[in-house]
């Protein structure tokens, strides 16, 4: 009897201990706790990159002098009206998130960019614990630093005051987020200087790690050249012209090619997989305000002013636009690439501007003419000038022509002295009336308000006072 008892107890104990670990091993079909560098790499790509279905700052170009307002004045009841959401931005309202319908058109850029930052922070934080080779880790590290710099660059230029060396140490920038998980904190605004320092640091480190790693991927993922290019752009914004030249040189040394418009495949939009000057691609090709299709009764075609800037033999006329509508980025299915890109042309333009500012006028003009040589249908493209101011004007106009509708113009206007802009708004659906709105020189509205959803929750946000603006 006793023997039996012990047998049973033994069975019981065995039952409870055998393969306990296997049985209780955490399981899920599609969920993982990231462990390897690969896991994090996929996560970073999924959550921190702005891929083909994501965008930020869609409204950036409709605030500039590159667009005008257009309405058909009629439309079926099913059609959408781009003016509804655009009005607040196009006319630089005190609260651009307020749509004409009265509902709020949430500006998600803030949310999305900060989420991207958090994901980069997590990847950087967890690096040491990941399984993988040092080489893989260096690549991930470089990527995360680049994306973070990229995020902060857009954030500070959207919501921070324009950079000015004199005031940067007190100007309102955007919060610096060093979190690596969920936390309930109210992050205060940092200074613009702090933001720029952080961007430059991240870029410097990113470049170091890109140099260290042997991994080189295509332009869907962050890479050394794009880090150089972003560095040259940030340096340009900070007016560190030597640095601009230094970084632009590095870009051009590695990827000198420009897209020759004379020989391009005319079926494809400008930003496409065969375009040799694309360094890094991001964002959605769909542009909500530039659709003049059947189902919209209004849109924002290019302004007369911009149109006038292009010479007749400038091929950009047909490559960049289609019936007065920006048309640089085509359907993903055709172009096999995302909607936006960082490209080599910008390196030439950055360098040209830096040379002009540094009074090295011949080099500035050489860069501009080199770019133009790829853009014109004939040899009649050379520009020249002998005074610094004239060269600067040439450089700035060329930059406007080349980089229009790539989310650059608004930022350029901010750093070029925030000029006065007039916008005519077409109000009404059947009886169209013209309303004139004016953005004054140096207007506070050159800085966007921080979105409502943030200020409602984050009480430590100091707001910039944008002026009330109504039609004149």
């Amino acid at each position, binding site marked *: *009897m006793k023997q039996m*008892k012990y047998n049973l107890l033994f069975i*019981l104990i065995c*039952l*409870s201990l055998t393969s*306990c670990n296997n*049985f*209780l091993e*955490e*399981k*899920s*079909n*599609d*969920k*993982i*706790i*990231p462990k390897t560098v690969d*896991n994090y790499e*996929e*996560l970073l*790509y*999924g*959550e921190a990159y702005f*891929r*083909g279905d994501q965008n930020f700052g869609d409204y950036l170009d409709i605030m500039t002098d590159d667009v005008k307002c257009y309405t058909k004045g009629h439309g*079926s009841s*099913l059609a959408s009206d781009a003016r509804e959401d655009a009005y607040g931005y196009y006319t630089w309202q005190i609260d651009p998130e307020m749509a004409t*319908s*009265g*509902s*709020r058109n949430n500006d998600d850029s*803030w*949310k999305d960019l*900060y*989420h991207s*930052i*958090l*994901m980069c*922070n*997590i990847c950087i934080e967890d690096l040491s614990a990941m399984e993988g080779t040092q080489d893989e880790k260096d690549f991930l590290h470089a990527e995360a630093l680049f994306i973070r710099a990229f995020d902060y660059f857009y954030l500070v230029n959207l919501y921070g005051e324009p950079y000015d060396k004199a005031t940067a140490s007190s100007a309102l920038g*955007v919060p610096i987020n060093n*979190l690596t*998980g*969920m*936390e*309930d*904190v109210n*992050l205060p605004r940092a200074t613009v200087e702090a933001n720029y320092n952080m961007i430059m640091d991240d870029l410097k480190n990113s470049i170091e790690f890109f140099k260290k790693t042997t991994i080189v991927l295509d332009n*869907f993922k962050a890479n050394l050249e794009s880090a150089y290019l972003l560095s040259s752009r940030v340096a340009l914004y900070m007016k560190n012209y030597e640095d601009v030249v230094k970084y632009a040189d590095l870009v051009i040394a590695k990827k000198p090619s420009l897209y020759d418009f004379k020989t391009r495949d005319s079926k494809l939009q400008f930003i496409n997989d065969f375009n040799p000057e694309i360094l890094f691609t991001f964002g959605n090709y769909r542009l909500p305000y530039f659709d003049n299709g*059947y*189902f919209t009764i209004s849109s924002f075609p290019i302004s007369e002013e911009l149109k006038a800037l292009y010479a007749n033999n400038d091929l950009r006329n047909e490559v960049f636009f289609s019936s007065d509508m920006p048309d640089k980025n085509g359907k993903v299915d055709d172009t*096999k*690439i*995302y909607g936006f890109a960082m490209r080599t042309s910008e390196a030439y333009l950055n360098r040209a501007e830096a040379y002009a500012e540094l009074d090295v006028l011949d080099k500035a003009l050489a860069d501009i003419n080199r770019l133009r040589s790829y853009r014109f249908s004939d040899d009649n493209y050379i520009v020249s000038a002998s005074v610094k101011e004239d060269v600067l004007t040439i450089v700035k106009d060329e930059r406007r022509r080349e980089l229009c509708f790539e989310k650059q113009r608004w930022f350029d206007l901010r750093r070029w002295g925030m000029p006065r802009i007039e916008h005519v708004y077409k109000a009404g659906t059947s009886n169209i009336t013209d309303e004139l709105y004016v953005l004054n020189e140096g207007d506070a509205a050159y800085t966007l308000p921080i*979105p409502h*959803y*943030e200020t*409602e*929750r*984050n009480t430590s946000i100091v707001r910039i006072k944008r002026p009330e603006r109504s039609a004149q």
Partner: protein
Amino acid sequence: MFEINFINNKQTNRMKKKSLNGPGIPINYSKICNILRLCIVFVFLLNLTLFAKAQDVKITLNMSNVKLEKIVKELKKQTNMRFFYSVEKLELQGKKTIHLKNASLDESLKSIFNGTSLTYSINKNVVVIKDVDTIAKNKVETIVIVGRVTDINDNPLPGVTVMIKGSFLGVTTDINGEYKLRVLNSKNLILVYSFVGMQTKEIVYSGKNTINIVLLEEVQKIDEIVITGYQKIEKRKLSSSIVSLSGDVIREGAALSLDNMLQGKISGLSVLNPTATVGASPKIRIRGASSISGNREPVWVVDGIILDDPVSISPTELNSLDNINLIGNAISSLNPDDIARIDILKDASATAIYGVKAANGVIVVTTKRGKYGKARINYSTNLTFMERPTYKNLHRMNSEERVEVSEEAFERGLTYRNPPAHVSYEGALYDLFAKNISYDDFLKQVKFYKEQNTDWLDELFRTSFSQTHNVSLSGADKNTNYYFSGAYKNANGNFKYNNLEQYNGMLKLSSNLNNKLRVGIDLRVSNSKKHYQHSSIDPFKYAYQTSRAIPLYNEDGSLSYYNKSQGHAVPLVYNILNELEHSGKTIENQSLNFNARLNYKILPELVFNGIVSLSRNNTYQKEWFDDKTWYASSLRYLNLGDAFPTKLTDPFYTSQCRLPYGGQLTNDDTKQSSYTIRADVNYNKIFKEVHDFSVTIGTEVKSNIYEGIKTNQMGYLPDRGDKFLDIDVIKFPMYQARVEELKDVVTDNTFNMLSFFGTMTYAYDNRYIANFNIRTDGSNKFGQDKSTKFLPIWSVSGRWNVHNEEFFKSVSWVDNLSFRASYGIQGNVSSDQTPNLVAILGTADKTSGYNISTLDKLPNPDLKWEKTTSTNVAIEFSLFKGLVSASFDYYNKKGKDMIVSRDVSLSTGSNSMTMNAGNIENKGFDFNVIVNPIRTKDISWELSLNGGYNKNTVTDAGISEINWEDYLTGDAIIPGKSVNSFYSYKFGGLNEVGMPTFLDTEEIDGISKAQLFKNVFEYTGKRIADLEGGFSTTFRYKKWTLGAIFFYSIGKKIRLNPLYENTGQYLPRPQQNMSDDFVNRWKNAGDENITNIPVLSNDPGLNVYSTTFTDREIDICDNAWQMYNMSNIRTCSGDFLRFRTLNLRYALSKELCKKLSLNDVSFRLEVSNLFTLKSKKLKGRDPEQVSMTKDTGAIPLARTYTMGLNVTF
């Protein structure tokens, strides 16, 4: 077979008790069992020898004027001898004073019994105290009594103990049930016949020497034991809060599933039946909502095994009071006729053994088993009629009243924002203006509409007939117990397209392989098929809200269609019958449960129990519509048969047509399979007669898997042989978008759990009982924090049986008085919270080809367990021999560190985070009172009252942002208020033009959202009652039994059905019916003083309240009409009293049954939902029915009539 046994009374008692505690092995005094019995006697004798020296003990007694029994007890204490005596006889001797010092046992006894009519004899270690008379007469006469013992069916009962009362003389019956007993004749000779499982019978010897006895089966009183699923506990040793009910008590004829029968029967158990839909499961809560974000449903246990839901449903869906569960829950597949009893475990002490799953209480169901005797066949049937709903009391306009409203609108020049549908009066107007008809024709048509009065409720609903049939075959002999049953149900809902068909089968078999080993198997199968309407149709709401001026049929009898598509360029025609005919939903469930048990007696007091359980549930949900429905037309953007536009650039192709051909078939199939293996050892021993010690330790392994796939298939043509059309995705890009939207979903979840548990009970002298339970679970839950795996949960509890105290013995009118208290801690890891970063593997990016993963959970390192501490104190008593019995429990459940979600600043990179910030408290009491004023053979009357009061308070909600909608629906979790609290706008009367106004809606500069909401909204109340319970009465006169059950619910509030059914359209649409409240609407200036019903208007009335039309910053509503619907004057008290059932039962007399060669026949008539006392403002709506603000498909509870027949062969 003739044998004299030395069996003392205590011994038999203990045996009997074992059968209660153990796995239910009837101890048979058969040949085999005799060996066991001899063993026991042998062990007993061994014990005696251990005490052999006791006789030499010197005894000192110093007792004055005490009862003899007390002296004997003292003697017993000092000598450790066993004494056998009759308490009564000692009582008769009165009191005695005795002083002895160092006396021998013999001397002591001599002096004790000196002068009494008693004498004694010492037999080894046993002292027998007996009558002097008896001994004297013994010498005179010995008689021989013979006889036969049988059961009620004349089956001989072998092994029955026949004893002489007050002695230890006895025999057992032989295989033929016969016995022969040689005894000394005496007056007051009483024979006691006892047998496990049978009622003990006493016969006074009257000089007849042949005594044949029929023993009746022992009906185990439900209140003697409780079953926790892991154990059986004697009620008098129970220190937890458990309510037990027998299957017969809960059985209701019209109810199809156990959960539908529980309302009002169990204190502390709240049941909400939101609809009369056949096959819908009610919402059950035990002692309030104990979680903020987690599941609030109790755990169902059948025969010791936890059953899982056939389809895994999210806590949010389960917790929502507006959600109706048609799929069914864990218990739906169980045939109610197979239920022997249920036990509801309420406090932490009772549920601790179930671990983390059981924080919301446990309902333990025990199925029937065979009764001793030859096989019996039972057939029972219930035939039920359910009434259909009518317009009576609903206060809806008839067609004339409705058309008059349209006339007024027209006459006052009120216009619609969008063109109204071409139907009813407005349709006639269209035709008139288009000059399609003359003015005379117009008047004729108006008259036609006024007289139409379509009875939608009659057209869609019916008085339905349902039937259930149940056959069982059961029986048991000394070794084997069996119960087989089969059932068939065909239940028709009072909605014409609602039907349920279910088959059940059960097989239970258990057998003693030898005197130590018992094995058993159970097998349950069920198959059910339920038919419902397509979920886009809410039939009762349709009937309620659709104008009665709309005809259902044309004059020629064909279906009449009208345009139901506001905003579509093409009028899309609708007819509800056509819609119902050409769409539908079926839910089919197949379930199989198999249990195998083994009980092995290692030692008499040490038992090993093992159980293996497998279960399988296949659920097939199918929802479909074909191309003839309006629903398909609305996707197609064309009526069936209309030509498609020719140009491919037409918006029809590019943006409208989402389903060009056919209908759609949606299949959602889920396979649930689980197994449980459990082993435990139970040790139970009574030391020195007063120390009752019981320990169980065990381990359990459980695995539950859900696998499923949900698919949508377009182009469905059911009437072409269930074929599917191929549709050109290039031509129809919107169709392609729809296909992409409705992606197939695969479910594959495995939940594994390994648990260890232990329970320990110590009872001292049946007076003080202490209990300790502990359990720890480890699971494969994904992302779980390793440190919280196997964290134990535990409970302690105690009981004091005051009535067993010596000092209380003299209080004769109290049969039972006891106190209970328990305390326990329960932990819970909220299902999907994790301290880790969790990613979801995605597919490759379409453009770049790189793999992506998306974020599932951000790391949240500060997460802790949710903890619930609960305390329960209770008193139980029974007075005047059961005339009044009652129990009263007070409890306090405190949930701490509940997981809540808090919105955080977006610059942190996340939108919201979960944190352990919620605290929730449930306080309350449960009570049960039973009074039996009349208890005679022919007449008995029982009254019972029960109730549960629960106060649920969210002490800390942790959520920072609540939308205005949440205030209205009751989904807002607000500190200081209960879960399910809802709010209303403050109605400020009508203004001078009859428009409604609302108070405190001003948006003062700089006001915060929270502050504004605080101003705007007024707390209305809770959607769940404070106090719920039932009372019932049962009156029996001979073979007639009349019973009534009432249910009451106090303390909840109800939002009335919306007065304005479509708040976006400010005038009532032509197809809408209206409440007859509108008859009293504001019509002329000054009416605002006498009515609260606003003017008929097309004014959105928004200028003040919505950001859409003003420069408000913060939204507080959609528009003024919606505010009116949701205002404080559109709420009412939800207190109600429901006459749940009235039933009359008649059982045929035994004689008549015998003539019919039947064992037992009874008839039953039952009426359910006889009437409900409720707030007048509800206007025909049932207080349990969900408000019509959402499409829930709820149908108000209806009255049912049931006829039942029960025959046992």
